[in-house]
């Protein structure tokens, strides 16, 4: 029987860094991926002369070479920096509203503040107050947790103690009166999956802080380049990767991992498994119920599935300027309502007035698409469940209808896009389900309510010896957190082996 020190299930961000981190330390590691390419969300696909980016809109936590952020340091430690070229985006984002409102914020604290002051002179003091609060929160948080203060207290970290569990909209309502301004400062909720009335201020503050301080980035060759680079490092450190075949079963005996059975029926002996698949898949599909303590399902049962997404990938036969696109990251917004209407929109299949983000990578990186062409990735969040009720025979026509509605929204802001379309592909929640294997196509794992944050959930640990998780399902989602999650899982295994 084949034997490995560790088997990693899934080659998404978390699986890749876990595998690479273990192989780097000399462990014999097997990486199993159901698809024919590494990356999970972090991937691309080709249509005609275009290579479409699937997921990455803005990479967080990179920082510059002079002032490296946590992600740059992580990638450096894996030895993949030299294989990649990062493109800094100068703008935080642009917002375009159907009523003609336009605003672009540069990725710089002072410039963000002065731009907002100019546009909202009546909220001048509030703007300062808000950013002071965001920065105070982030600095408190980093000092207490990232730098692991051994003796934290309310006196040292007042904002952390008072704001960690507050809803974002409550904080915004306390500080601002102008609904437009509140909306603008919380557009990033889309990167987390919960509207501001349900999202905690902590998440919003950290996201703003991280993007402003470490700048948003993109990668030459897209997120696939990152996935390929990490896999390449894994292989050159002696790792074994198998594609087109995932894990079918995790073998557990006496509460400890004993091996894995692959989709091809091969039995692999190992005492360590890192699962990059969802916890639901890992527990409910890959393992026998009798090996799982009830506590697991009780804990998990209190959590809900995050939305999936509807995405349009469009290749244009002209430069972005000709379409009127001048920013890399564009939030297209109809209105700023912070009530549960946003939520119910996400629960319906059709697309009308939802917020969407349109990324045009060619603005920051003119080589992204072929010369004289450009591409847009337009995404809006949609729960997967309603899509699962569409009869298969109707699937394609519903998909086209949604694509058409989405394109109309884009046309309302950038008229004339339709006359330049060369390629167009749409991805539905079912597409995400197919390519990620996640229940209901959830792209952000479990929903990120405060109760689901790292403080209250088991994270990468399982009550089964040798089993670890590394993915967006264990807590925070996004590239930086999931890449980090894989490294943490690797470290846990290394630590355990060191201790033995």
């Amino acid at each position, binding site marked *: 029987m084949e034997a490995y020190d560790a088997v990693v299930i899934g080659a998404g961000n978390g699986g890749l860094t876990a595998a690479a981190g273990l192989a780097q330390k000399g462990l014999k590691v097997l990486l199993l991926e159901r698809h024919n390419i590494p990356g999970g969300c972090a991937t691309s696909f*080709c249509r005609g002369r275009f*290579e479409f980016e699937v997921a990455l809109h803005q990479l967080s936590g990179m920082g510059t070479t002079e002032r490296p952020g946590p992600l740059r340091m992580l990638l450096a430690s894996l030895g993949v920096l030299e294989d990649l070229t990062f493109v800094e985006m100068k703008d935080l984002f642009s917002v375009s509203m159907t009523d003609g409102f336009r605003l672009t914020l540069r990725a710089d604290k002072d410039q963000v503040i002065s731009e907002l002051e100019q546009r909202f002179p009546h909220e001048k003091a509030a703007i300062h107050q808000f950013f002071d609060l965001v920065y105070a929160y982030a600095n408190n948080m980093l000092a207490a947790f990232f730098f692991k203060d051994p003796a934290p207290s309310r006196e040292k970290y007042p904002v952390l103690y008072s704001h960690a569990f507050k809803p974002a909209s409550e904080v915004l309502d306390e500080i601002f009166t102008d609904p437009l301004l509140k909306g603008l400062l919380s557009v990033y909720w889309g990167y987390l999956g919960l509207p501001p009335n349900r999202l905690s201020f902590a998440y919003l503050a950290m996201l703003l802080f991280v993007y402003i301080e470490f700048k948003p980035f993109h990668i030459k060759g897209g997120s696939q380049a990152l996935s390929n680079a990490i896999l390449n490092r894994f292989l050159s450190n002696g790792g074994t990767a198998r594609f087109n075949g995932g894990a079918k079963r995790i073998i557990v005996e006496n509460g400890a991992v004993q091996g894995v059975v692959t989709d091809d029926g091969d039995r692999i002996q190992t005492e360590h498994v890192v699962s990059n698949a969802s916890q639901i898949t890992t527990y409910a599909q890959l393992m026998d119920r009798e090996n799982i303590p009830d506590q697991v399902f009780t804990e998990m*049962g209190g959590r809900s599935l995050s939305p999936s997404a509807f995405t349009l990938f469009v290749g244009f036969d002209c430069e972005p300027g000709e379409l009127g696109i001048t920013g890399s990251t564009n939030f297209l917004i109809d209105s700023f309502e912070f009530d549960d209407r946003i939520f119910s929109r996400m629960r319906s299949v059709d697309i009308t007035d939802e917020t969407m983000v349109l990324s045009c990578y060619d603005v920051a990186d003119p080589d992204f698409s072929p010369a004289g062409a450009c591409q847009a990735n337009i995404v809006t969040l949609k729960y997967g469940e309603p899509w699962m009720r569409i009869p298969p*025979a109707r699937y394609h026509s519903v998909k086209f209808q949604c694509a*058409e509605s989405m394109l109309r929204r884009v046309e309302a802001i950038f008229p004339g896009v339709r006359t330049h379309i060369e390629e167009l*592909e749409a991805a539905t929640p079912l597409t995400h389900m197919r390519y990620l294997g996640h229940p209901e196509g959830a792209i952000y794992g479990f929903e990120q*309510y405060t109760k689901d944050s790292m403080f209250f959930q088991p994270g990468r640990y399982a009550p089964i010896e040798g089993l670890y998780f590394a993915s967006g399902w264990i807590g925070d989602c996004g590239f930086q957190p999931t890449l980090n999650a894989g490294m943490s899982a690797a470290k846990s295994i290394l630590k355990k082996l060191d201790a033995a």
Partner: protein
Amino acid sequence: MSKAIFEAFDGYQGIVDEIDFSRKHGVDYTVYRDSVDQQINLLHPSRISLRVSDIIVESPSTKTLRFVSQDGYLPPFLAGQYIAFFLEVGGVRTRRPYSLSSPPNQTGYYDITVRRVERGRVSNYLLDEARRGDILEGSGPSGHFYFNPVFHDRTQVCLAGGSGITPFMSMIREAVECGLDRTFYLFYGNKTLDEAIFHDELGRLSGRFQNIIYVPVIENPPGGYAGATGLITGDLIMKTIGDVADKTFYLCGPQGMYDFCVPELQRMGVPLRKIRREIYGPPAHIWEDPAWPREIKAEDHFRVRVAGGKPIDARAGEPLLTALENAGLRVPSLCRSGECSMCRIKILSGKVFQPAGVPVRKSDRQFGYVHACVSFPIEDLEILT
């Protein structure tokens, strides 16, 4: 152990209550099991079992094979898509894509229409060996050659060559049977008239329906033939369609047809974004490619080592995928034309020749990945599958 610090955060107790509540009224995730796979299999099964229910002779060199599903379910498809068959022929496990020629509204069966390729492994097998009742394994429907209502024009100008008629047959049948608001100009090129598949059916349909305009184009017509002859030229197309505005152009046929027809369309003023080309397998005579290295002959042989295993033999003029399959290796494939990336492999050392324009991801190129179905060995190789 001392209390965790977050227990002192404002609002802590409320969160704890929320957790209790949510668990009490929680979701039972144990029932999820393989529900994801089941849901996906309704649309994109990785494998389906098909039984030959009928075989219809279409022309001296062509038959239609009709398939029904073994388990009673056939996934939906878009007219123009193909499925790949997974077969073992002459002791070699291989796969071949065939466009569905039946319309998608016909949910009871799938038709494929196969034309004989001289010395071809699978076409000859399907034409000569397949019998009613045989069970074949296939992929789910795939491919990107279909009418996309979001940005294609409702007037479709279709250029077909030989067996390249099949996706158009599916589209036209659907349009007629479902009364779709679309117009088809179909130019169908063949060497001889008796090779034109579906000639009678197309003639009938264009006689009955105003929105189906069928123009067969015969290279070597029989004496006294009154229809269009020679190749499908820009002049012929312009004369028939009037102008190029508000029309999308679709091509499906051999490479030679694309090489000739695409410049013709461009000369007519059709922008590239309006020209959709179906993939059609690897180039048949790769050594005639202008970029092919002169010193290499099609018959040259190279040694290919797979992950340090024992070397296998590969011919320069043949796709690497074929050599791997001949040696008994399992390499998945679907389109066998470079498009789908299923046959992606990593070249560790040595060189392959890849025709221009193969859609390989940029970072795949950077890290040495190629699509084996359109890669031709021009040195000894070491690869990772």
